[in-house]
């Protein structure tokens, strides 16, 4: 059953991606990219990564789509036909893709408990979290406590992104006061 869900989700993902490449109407592409995110969120749920699925559904399918549509409302909704030759680009993509697929052959199998990532600090986090941090959700303990520096860095990245958009777009003319 899980395999069936995986296959259908991945098939829909591939179909959505092909649709995004083929379409020239950018509004349709923005909506398809929202669908792509929602399908990815479904895949994350199947992989038991509900935290990531939350984020993907809210940011990827929700906010990003709205921002894309907002950007399209400011610019043009039709993609310009490029005059560049596409053959070299296709070659680069095919070679890169082949190299990536080739490198996956060397990776540990999915869910392999002997994989290096499960042998390093993960066992310690799982064993010590109830004693050291005392929260039932180990993901929260790792993100906020053991890896607190990383999360501080991520929050600073969000801060910087907001600051950048504010500096570029936020300080337009003040809205005219109608009550004055």
């Amino acid at each position, binding site marked *: 059953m899980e395999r069936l869900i995986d296959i259908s989700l991945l098939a829909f993902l591939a179909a959505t991606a092909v649709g995004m490449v083929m379409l020239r109407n950018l509004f349709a592409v923005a909506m398809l990219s929202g669908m792509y995110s929602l399908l990815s969120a479904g895949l994350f749920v199947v992989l038991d990564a509900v935290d990531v699925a939350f984020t993907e559904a809210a940011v990827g399918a929700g906010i990003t789509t709205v921002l894309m549509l*907002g950007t399209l409302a400011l610019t043009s909704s039709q993609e310009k036909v490029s005059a560049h030759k596409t053959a070299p680009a296709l070659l680069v993509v095919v070679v890169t893709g082949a190299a990536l697929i080739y490198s996956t052959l060397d990776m540990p199998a999915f869910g392999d408990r002997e994989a290096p990532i499960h042998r390093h600090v993960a066992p310690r986090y799982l064993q010590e979290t109830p004693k050291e941090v005392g929260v039932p959700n180990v993901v929260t303990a790792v993100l906020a406590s053991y890896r607190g520096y990383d999360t501080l860095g991520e929050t600073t990245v969000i801060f910087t992104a907001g600051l950048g958009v504010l500096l570029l777009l936020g300080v337009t003319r003040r809205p005219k006061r109608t009550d004055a």
Partner: protein
Amino acid sequence: MRHHAVLRVISKLMIPLILLFALYVQFHGDFGPGGGFQAGVIFGAGMILYGLIFGVETAGRVVPPGLLRTGIAMGVLLYAGVGVAGLALGGTYLDYNVLAHDPVHGQHLGIFLVELGVFTTVASVMITIFSAFAGRGR
């Protein structure tokens, strides 16, 4: 979108639930999936939906842009401030054990404050970016 009755009614029903769910994800993050980032984007998405349906100006009256700009900085400051508090209380940077008498309570307090900081910054940034884009169009 002021004249779309269906959108207005449905979003009026949905938005309180979305905001409430964001708070649930925030404060229940120690027990279930979720945390500051997820709660922040869900809260932001709820407010963005409000702005989409009822207009950016109306949303700006609910959450003023000045408050959002303060929130963007306050979240990071709160997070970094928890680290400095750990230093002041004799621990290392971002060491929550020293925040309370009992290390586990200190961890709880530290994680709560840090997640609150993440929530504040993420929600403020999301709403600010949306209103920056949407306010540009008129």
